[in-house]
């Protein structure tokens, strides 16, 4: 069992090592810039070919781009509104659901196993999920 800090890049899989840049400061900005560049190319591609549209509305330049962006944002904001109405504490259905059965308390150390949880039983021979080890 190891904790958060003591894993060195050398111990990681090469695939993981290649992705370590995502945690560097400024990575988010770089992703955004690349994404913006791709978006610009895609948007301009509208002028580079003849669009075979089913409906007239499709012939408006950039319509798909604008629609994708706007509908995504709309979905998110509507969902946030919905959450205000339908959100309940995790133990709302308590014994009637599996929602809090196998989980550790929020914010607790992920390296500790909850007794009786799925991952704990997975470690026991003949446990519910066989003999897998949940943690290193």
């Amino acid at each position: 069992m190891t904790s958060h800090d003591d894993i060195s890049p050398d111990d990681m899989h090469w695939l993981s090592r290649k992705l370590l840049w995502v945690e560097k400061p400024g990575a988010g900005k770089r992703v955004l810039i690349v994404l913006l560049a791709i978006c610009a190319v895609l948007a301009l591609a509208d002028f580079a070919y003849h669009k075979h549209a089913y409906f007239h509305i499709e012939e408006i330049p950039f319509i798909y781009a604008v629609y994708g962006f706007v509908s995504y944002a709309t979905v998110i904001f509507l969902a946030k509104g919905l959450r205000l109405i339908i959100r309940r504490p995790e133990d709302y259905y308590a014994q009637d659901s599996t929602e809090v059965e196998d989980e550790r308390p929020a914010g607790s150390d992920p390296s500790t196993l909850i007794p009786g949880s799925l991952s704990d039983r997975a470690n026991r021979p003949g446990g519910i999920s066989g003999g897998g080890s949940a943690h290193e």
Partner: protein
Amino acid sequence: MNEVLLPPLIYGLGAISIPFLPAGKLRQALMLAVPVLAFALIGNLPYGDYAVFNAAGLHIGLLRIDALSWIFALIFSIAAFISLLYAWHVDDRVQQVTTLLYAGSAIGAVFAADLVSLFVFWEGTAIASVFLIWARRTEGSYRTGMRYLVIQVFSGVLLLAGTVLMYRDTGSVAFNAMTLGSTATWCIFIAFGVKCAFPLLHNWLQDSYPAATITGTVTLSAFTTKLAVYALARGFPGTELLIYIGAVMTLFPVFFAAIENNLRRVLAYSLNNQLGFMVVGIGIGTPLALNGTVAHAFCHILYKALLFMSMGAVMYRTGTSKASELGGLYKSMPFTMVFCIIGAMSISAFPLFSGFVSKSLILSASADNGYFFIWLALITASVGVLEHSGIKIPYFTFFAHDNGWRVKEAPVHMLLAMGIAAAFCVGIGVFPGLLYQYLPYKMEAYVPYTTTHVVTQLQLLIFAGLAFALLIRYRLYPAEIRAVNLDTDWIYRRMLPIIVGFFAAMIGTIWKAAGQLTQYYVTSLIRGIYATHGPHGPLARTWPSGSMVLWVAVILGMTVLLTYV
């Protein structure tokens, strides 16, 4: 030509032999052989009806092989194989037996040529599958399984009622295309609708799938709902009502999925949304649309299983599938991450992935037939799919905030199962002809990769991705919080118990009051009788015999007097 070994029989024999085999590689290998063998035996038979007989005056057909049932049997066999391989490590006879029975029932239902055998296999899937939820062996999973079972059996009972009415109306139980109208067809339609998770009938899906075991959820995701899609495609093609039901189905789960914390439940909402696309295709009912439905069901089973498998692998290693607890797993589970992203890109319909080549058929069919608003709804829902399955699932599991998980990569057999599913996703995406050649209805050659399709789809998806990046950057994206969200299941989990409880209390009070009132009257009646007839009552006094003689003399005297005067 009745001497055919039926696929459900092979699954049944496999299931029966499992308890007698020692745990280990032999048993697992035998289980893997079952779907391969079952399909190999019937896969090459010429189309037609086999195993036809008369039972109690009913015309029963157990094995109708045509283009539609063949391709569903094929994908169900592939799904059974993949989920059994994924469950290689599971040493639980209950799950092994029921997985085989469940897959066997689903394939049996696909081949059923009459409503009676359809009903038998339909209930078979319900009863076998609930054990995959109970196999978690907790109080919560037991109760969730009960709710699941009640609803599934309700669907079966409706199907039976419809079958009986159908037999009374037409004298036949053949399972062919129907038109909505009579009570019989409505019963059957709603029975299919419950299993297909129509809006307002949907919530059993999101309630139960995340409660099943890690491997059980993968199995569950493949069969029940797609069996319902098959049944609708067989029974109600071109029913216009389905277009609108499907459109609603694609849209509403999107909002629930966006704020759901349990990622396996997010996938269940996403499953619901994908079913919507298929239902729209059935409703349009042209060959192109129906082929779109079949193709989408085929691809969907694979990429949905892939996504459930990757979340299952994460849960197997970490014990949770909640977005708020996960993050940063790219460091520990890179292969699972790659497979998850392949599944995510397939479901989001990125060009070169399977979802693109199947969803395009349905979108083109809706546009060809002039359903502008339906087409718009499907486009909007596609953005929604990208949101919850394409971005949210991989991002919050493998990236986002590193929650400190340092776990092993998924076991080899899980990676292998995910690898096979991922290979199908990419293979079909790159070579759509591989899938198109098996589609059941005759249509003009369809080309998914036109410049317009590719560019517009990429614009839609990448700009939606840009919206995501901006929302995350400016902290507007809804945070992952440990919470549950209410859905229609609240009605039967909370509201109805409260109403029933209220009436029970009210009736209890009335009963008690009535009891007290009765007791009061009975008591006063007894008191009255006691007063007159009790030990000191006038009527219970001991009378001396002299007074009786006196009274007799008086009465005698009166009689004499009255007689002679």
